[in-house]
């Protein structure tokens, strides 16, 4: 378009140019900065969601307690679930996608940098919108899966916030998925074929395809819920011919792929961490990749296992029991491949490695209880009890969060240029590990002993052992709190320290470690040409005839330095932009307009939205970026 990258001065469409200072964060389109913003925001929500969990655990520490009222408890457990899923684990994954995808595939940015910024801002505004409900009359209180008609028929706008808030977050995820899919498919460095991609990239690709196809399904369900709630249609209202079970089908058709959206990024990270610290390549790369893709496909055929108690009939229940059992096969493949990656290796017990091993061990437990749910007749005992709560925390905490924590320790030096303290890291891990098992292990037993989930009190009639197991859980949750404090302390200490991390502190295998630390805005001075899977490792080591790896005499860092010598003349990075922020700022206004049936708010939102769209379209693009 415009031939010059600098617009005529005075033009309203002048692009911001600052890359430093707080203002630059508002307009940045740099994938690394956006990744950090995702990470910080998600961590802040993690603390909020964790606080809600602690209140829940304090309330349940004894039978018939009254720390929280029923109404507040119901809002807390609903928001805890929504927060941890949509505002913590998904954006944490997005943080890693942002930071790592371009670096691991040897690209200078994502395919659509401004769209990337939009995704972040829409996520932030979606999260703030949801939490604004606490101020404006009450947070969502119908459970994170918002079963209709409870979600549509209670008075108060609590669940309207849920309907619109998730919609905004869905727009963010959808935009991000289109962006990352394009980036991965289309921006790989020369020679980086699909079967040479790091496993993390493969898992990211699967996750983003899942998002691409799952988000529209939940969008439709949320539209119907919002229409029922705000405009009194009857999609889910039995009295006027609607069917409450439609919500469940649509929700879980999204919701089960969502489970894999949450866990696959962590699987990808663990698949990167285990080989580095075992000093061996991933065992059965192809099997791990195909198992991941198979999980992605099969994840679409198991949704009704969340609905075994609905009474869909024996034929449907049998079919979904079978599909649920067999999705365990690719999952099992991965677990054995991870274990055998360590087997025969030379394992260094760094903090990221501890989290990765913890992931494999804990996720296995979550997988086993998952298979138990496929035993439909007994699932009728387990479902909606603390057994299920234990199961999905073993998958999402023992799985996703262990993986994400491992990823933080592993990539921290590349993200921030400094190493997290290993000693504090190990204290963090062991407190986290012990606290986690104390908090969620006993829930298996409490559930089988008859404690249903989502109850703000349980009676003494459930028996003294139920109460005792709940006390253990509460104790565990407090230990987790301590471990998180240790982590924050560690991050703070690192932030204050002057020690700069080397560019490849772990002797790692993939391309991101080829870049200098801190990573320059353009990532690579020269886009690397890839000849191997684990390209960076192969630049450092060769295999001798016996299959033993020997260091390449010249050493990688020298090679690398040499590459830095030959600077390209100009590397044009896209300029920052205001418009993603303006465009996404329209979304919450439209949301309030819908909830409160206020034309004014909706119009303000639409104006912001359209201003953003046209500003985006009309602003001068950086040179070369059509």
């Amino acid at each position, binding site marked *: 378009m415009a031939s010059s990258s600098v617009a005529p001065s005075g033009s309203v469409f002048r692009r911001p140019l600052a890359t430093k200072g707080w203002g630059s964060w508002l307009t940045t389109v740099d994938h690394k900065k956006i990744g950090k913003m995702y990470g910080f925001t998600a961590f802040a929500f993690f603390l909020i969601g964790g606080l809600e969990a602690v209140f829940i655990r304090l309330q349940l520490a004894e039978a018939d307690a009254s720390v929280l009222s029923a*109404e507040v408890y119901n809002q807390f457990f609903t928001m805890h679930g929504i927060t941890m899923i949509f505002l913590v684990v998904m954006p944490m994954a997005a943080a890693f996608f942002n930071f790592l995808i371009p670096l691991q595939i040897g690209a200078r940015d994502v395919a659509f940098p401004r769209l990337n910024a939009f995704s972040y801002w829409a996520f932030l505004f979606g999260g703030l919108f949801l939490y604004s409900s606490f101020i404006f009359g009450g947070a969502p209180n*119908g*459970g994170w899966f918002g079963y209709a*008609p409870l979600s549509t*028929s209670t*008075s108060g706008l609590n669940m309207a916030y849920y309907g619109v808030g998730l919609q905004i977050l869905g727009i963010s995820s959808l935009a991000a998925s289109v962006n990352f899919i394009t980036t991965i498919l289309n921006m790989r460095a020369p020679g980086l074929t699909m079967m040479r991609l790091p496993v993390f990239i493969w898992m990211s690709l699967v996750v983003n395809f899942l998002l691409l196809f799952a988000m529209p399904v939940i969008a439709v369900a949320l539209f119907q819920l919002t229409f029922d709630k705000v405009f009194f249609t009857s999609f889910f*209202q*039995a*009295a006027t011919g609607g069917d*409450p*079970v439609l919500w469940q089908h649509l929700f879980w058709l999204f919701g089960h792929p969502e489970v894999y959206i949450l866990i696959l990024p962590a699987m990808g990270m663990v698949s990167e961490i285990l080989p580095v610290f*075992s000093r*061996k*390549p991933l*065992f*059965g*790369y192809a*099997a791990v990749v195909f198992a991941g893709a198979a999980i992605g496909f099969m994840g679409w055929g198991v949704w009704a296992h969340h609905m075994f*108690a*609905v*009474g869909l*009939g024996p034929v449907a*229940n049998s079919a979904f*029991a079978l599909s649920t059992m*067999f999705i*365990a*096969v690719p999952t099992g493949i991965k*677990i054995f491949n991870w274990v*055998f990656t*360590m087997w*025969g290796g*030379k*394992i260094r*017990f760094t903090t990221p490695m501890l989290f990765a091993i913890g992931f494999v061990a804990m996720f*296995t437990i979550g997988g086993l*209880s998952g*298979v*138990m749910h496929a035993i*439909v007749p*007994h699932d*009728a*005992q387990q*479902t*909606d*009890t603390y057994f299920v709560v234990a199961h999905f925390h073993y998958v999402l905490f023992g799985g996703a969060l262990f993986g994400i924590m491992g990823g933080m320790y592993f990539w921290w030096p590349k993200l921030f240029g400094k190493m997290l303290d290993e000693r504090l890291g190990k204290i963090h891990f062991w407190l986290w590990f012990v606290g986690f098992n104390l908090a969620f292990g006993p829930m298996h037993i409490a559930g089988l*002993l*008859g404690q249903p*989930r989502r*109850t703000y*009190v*349980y009676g003494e*009639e*459930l*028996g*003294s*052992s*139920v109460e005792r197991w709940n006390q253990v859980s509460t104790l565990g949750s407090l230990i987790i709190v301590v471990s998180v404090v240790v982590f924050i302390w560690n991050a703070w200490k690192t932030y204050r320290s002057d020690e700069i991390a080397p560019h490849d502190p772990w002797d790692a295998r993939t391309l991101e470690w080829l870049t200098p630390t801190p990573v320059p805005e353009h990532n690579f001075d020269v886009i690397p040409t890839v000849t191997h899977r684990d390209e960076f490792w192969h630049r450092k*080591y060769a295999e001798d005839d*016996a299959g033993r790896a*020997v260091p390449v005499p010249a050493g990688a860092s020298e090679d690398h330095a040499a590459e830095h010598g030959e600077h390209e003349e100009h590397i044009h990075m896209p300029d920052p932009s205001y418009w993603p922020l303006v465009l996404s700022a329209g979304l919450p206004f439209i949301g309030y307009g819908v909830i409160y049936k206020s034309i004014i708010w909706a119009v303000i939102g639409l104006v912001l939205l359209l201003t953003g769209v046209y500003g985006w379209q009309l602003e001068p693009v950086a040179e070369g970026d059509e």
Partner: protein
Amino acid sequence: MGDPRTWRCRARWLLPLAAVAALSACSGEQTALDPQGPFAERPDDLFRVVFWIAVGVFVLVQGLIIVAVLKFRDRGDDETLPVQTHGNTKLEILWTVIPALILAGIAVPTVQSIFELSEEPDGAVTIEVFGHRWWWEYQYPEAGVETANEMVIPVGRPVRLVMTAEEADQPDVGVIHSFWVPALAGKQDVIPGRITTLNIQADTEGRYLGQCAEYCGLSHANMRLRVIAVPPDEFDQWLEEQAADAPRPDEGTLEAEGEQLFFGGACVGCHAVRGVEVDGTRATGNVGPDLTHFATREEFAGAIFEVNEDNLAEWLEDPPAMKPMTPDERPSLGMPDLGLKPDEIRALVAYLLSLT
């Protein structure tokens, strides 16, 4: 503690779940680990098999992890790198096929059980179940009996529950609940606009605890239920008594005063007391529980409070303070604070306790 159920509920087979399970002293009677009838035993049998297989896999995987971690740790003794194995096709096929075969093995009895448990058993008693926010209504259609929260069934006979959910004042307007008495069967959702069914059976006499297991809003935690299994002849007698008209108090008593208040006040708008007419008023309300034989029940308000004078007096003083409910939002969502005076409460409590 002496009866056999208490002894069995130690659930010793669960021990390996964690050594700590041994600490699990006798639990309450809502455990799923101590089935008391065929419809709970069948799932339990399946679970035991799967549980042990899971224990096997658990030990195998965690064992492999522990061995790998101990055996292959970096001892820092030399700088050489380990052999760079990239995979092993035979091994990988092995850990694909074996789990698949195990799962296929589990699938067969699972599918069989799914079909068997869904069939209507021969000679079953039918009870209609209605899930309301936040209490259970039961109707025995053949006997013309209606009661709440406490379901009485005959020992040793299958019972077919035919269930739906609705707010008592508005048919089809309701939310999803789930009927769950772990000792007698797995849970079954109760859905507005749909009929779902569940088979239960108790092989021993007893009082079995259960509660709503699908989150249904504010007072979900307070939507409990009980199933009381009695010998068949006692069951028949119970049906007969429950079908009878409500008893009348003697004139001039406190109970009679309460009856006057009950029929003269707001109570009849929501509650039924069958077969009684006081000053031309009948109590036919169907928003709250049928109170015809209220005093034969042991618990009230979603089976969370014991029926006794103190609890009832406290309840009548301000129901939403005792159990979270929102009658101001919609009258069917619980009993409102009627602003009763202490002597009115005393009379009403006396009357309610006379409804045997």
